[in-house]
């Protein structure tokens, strides 16, 4: 064996050892990194689960009391009624307008400057804090349009607030419809509107329903936009369909009890806390139900439509 060969053998062994060290080091740092990521993720998941359970446990003693669902100071019957009233009133405005806008963007207009402008407007509006939008609603609907602090002003403010979200969700739902179906409809001589009614909308129904339910979740949880537009108090005849009376919702009631109105309700501090905990638990339950419904309903409709 020549000297040269011996040297190169030693060199290659050294290189092999170095490579082994490198790969071990990489393996260790890979292990550490994955472990850290596991840890962070589990911490976050535990935090989420803890929050839900803590709120439900805190509210549970209040939830089982019958007086909690009554009309007294410590009851939430008016707020429940108002929350669903304002939800339906807002959806009556929001659903057709946002769906129409989405249909126009997806089906009628071509890609171009117009769509860019509308999408930019939507993103900007989505970025406006709900509190600022609430002040806008107060100025425009309550003051300038003479609606006063009323359910109608609140619903119109919520329309402005949720328009961008609803538009984006509806656009996504509509764009899942395959192009071939549209072209088939048009090729049979249908006008665009006829084709949309008979082909696109039935096909997109599951997605549209899911989107509708998701916007409902947003509306139920919103409070800051309603502070100045719908007020924090109920008139005595709260159980009417009159859209021009002021009223509170579950969220604004919770804010009032624990925030500006603490100590003014004629309840003891512990009663106030119990009431607030109950409302928080109700809101969490509504949120869970809405999320489950959004998943379940979309799937159920899909099954029926595709089976038919």
């Amino acid at each position, binding site marked *: 064996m020549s000297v040269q060969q011996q040297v190169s053998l030693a060199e290659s062994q050294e290189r092999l050892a170095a490579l082994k060290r490198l790969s071990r080091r990489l393996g260790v740092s890979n292990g550490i990194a994955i472990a850290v990521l596991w840890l962070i993720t589990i911490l976050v998941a535990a935090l989420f689960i803890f929050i839900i359970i803590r709120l439900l446990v805190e509210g549970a003693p209040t939830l089982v009391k019958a007086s909690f669902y009554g009309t007294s100071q410590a009851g939430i019957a008016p707020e429940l009624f108002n929350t669903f009233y304002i939800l339906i009133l807002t959806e009556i405005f929001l659903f057709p307008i946002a769906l129409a806008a989405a249909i126009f963007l997806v089906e009628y207009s071509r890609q171009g400057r117009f769509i860019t402008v509308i999408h930019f407007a939507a993103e900007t509006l989505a970025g406006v804090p709900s509190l600022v939008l609430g002040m806008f609603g107060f100025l425009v609907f309550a003051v300038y349009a003479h609606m006063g602090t009323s359910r109608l002003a609140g619903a119109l403010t919520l329309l402005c607030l949720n328009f961008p979200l609803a538009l984006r969700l509806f656009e996504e739902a509509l764009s899942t419809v395959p192009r071939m179906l549209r072209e088939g409809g048009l090729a049979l001589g249908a006008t665009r*509107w006829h084709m949309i009614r008979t082909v696109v909308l039935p096909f997109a129904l599951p997605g549209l329903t899911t989107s509708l339910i998701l916007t409902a979740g947003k509306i139920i949880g919103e409070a800051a936009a309603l502070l100045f537009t719908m007020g924090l108090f109920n008139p005595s005849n709260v159980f009417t369909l009159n859209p021009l009376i002021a009223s509170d919702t579950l969220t604004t009631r919770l804010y009032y009890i624990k925030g500006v109105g603490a100590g003014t309700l004629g309840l003891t501090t512990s009663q106030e806390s119990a009431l607030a905990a109950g409302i928080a638990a109700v809101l969490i339950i509504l949120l869970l139900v809405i999320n489950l419904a959004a998943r379940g309903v979309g799937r159920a409709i899909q099954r029926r439509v595709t089976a038919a």
Partner: protein
Amino acid sequence: MQTTRRAHLSDQVVRVVFSICAILLVAVIISVIVFIGSKAFLVFGQGATFKGFFLGTFWDPTGAQDPTGNGNPTYGAGGLILGSVITTVIAIIIVAPLAIGTAVFFTESAPRWFVRIMQPLIEIFTGIPSVVVGFLGLLVVVPLLRTLASPLTGNLPTGGFGWGAAIVVLVIMVLPTTMSISIDALRAVPGSVREASLALGSTRWQMMSKAVLPAASAGLGTAVVLGFTRAIGETLAVALVLEGNQIPKNIFTIQVFFQPNVNITALIASDFGETSGASQNAYWTLAFVLLVITFIFVCISRYLASRSVYK
């Protein structure tokens, strides 16, 4: 012949009506800017100066707290703006690594059963009402911080309220949103990028940090910026745990995080409804400041999104 014409006519009508609905969105955002902008500068015509408004630290637009007793209003929003900026920035510094770390783990190496549990959890939390998070802050965060900070602040009944609690609450509010946008950004990176990196012999962590994260950097930036936009406008969660009227004097100490304090949104929420006329104008200026800040951040996020390679 007549039915065809009628069908075409209805098609045209529908088209016009639908386009009006789309334009309505543009009209809303323009009128938000115009109406709030029209009110925003009135305060400078009634005694407030530009410098005094943004640098002053005594906020008393009604004149009720005037130390001389004459009821002269003082418009010093510096403390409020500082409160919003500090709480938001610190919250985002905490949220960004948490959200991106979880999102990377989620898309790159989490087992499927784990994803199936976490996905609905994140979706539920992106929609959690902010007032509920504020209540949770009162229930859990404030007492906890009061105990933790008692060696620093002494045993005050108001201890625990303030910027510290606001930061924790903001983290809870913003984390899910930032996380789900980050996950979308990472999922948009095509599998071929990962395969190329793995085929060159890199470990999973190298693949994530050297290939996937840089490829998704613009999308992740958008996620953080949108988180920022949400945090600065967050109102009720923060309002419930701040409880202050004025910014404290000891602003350069660590105690300042654990005593009642202020930010823009909390003061608007608690005081705007009770003011009118001249003193209300100051709150419109604050709203306009928020509007401008969020508009700038939306523009940044749009710029970042336009730079991202994978959408």
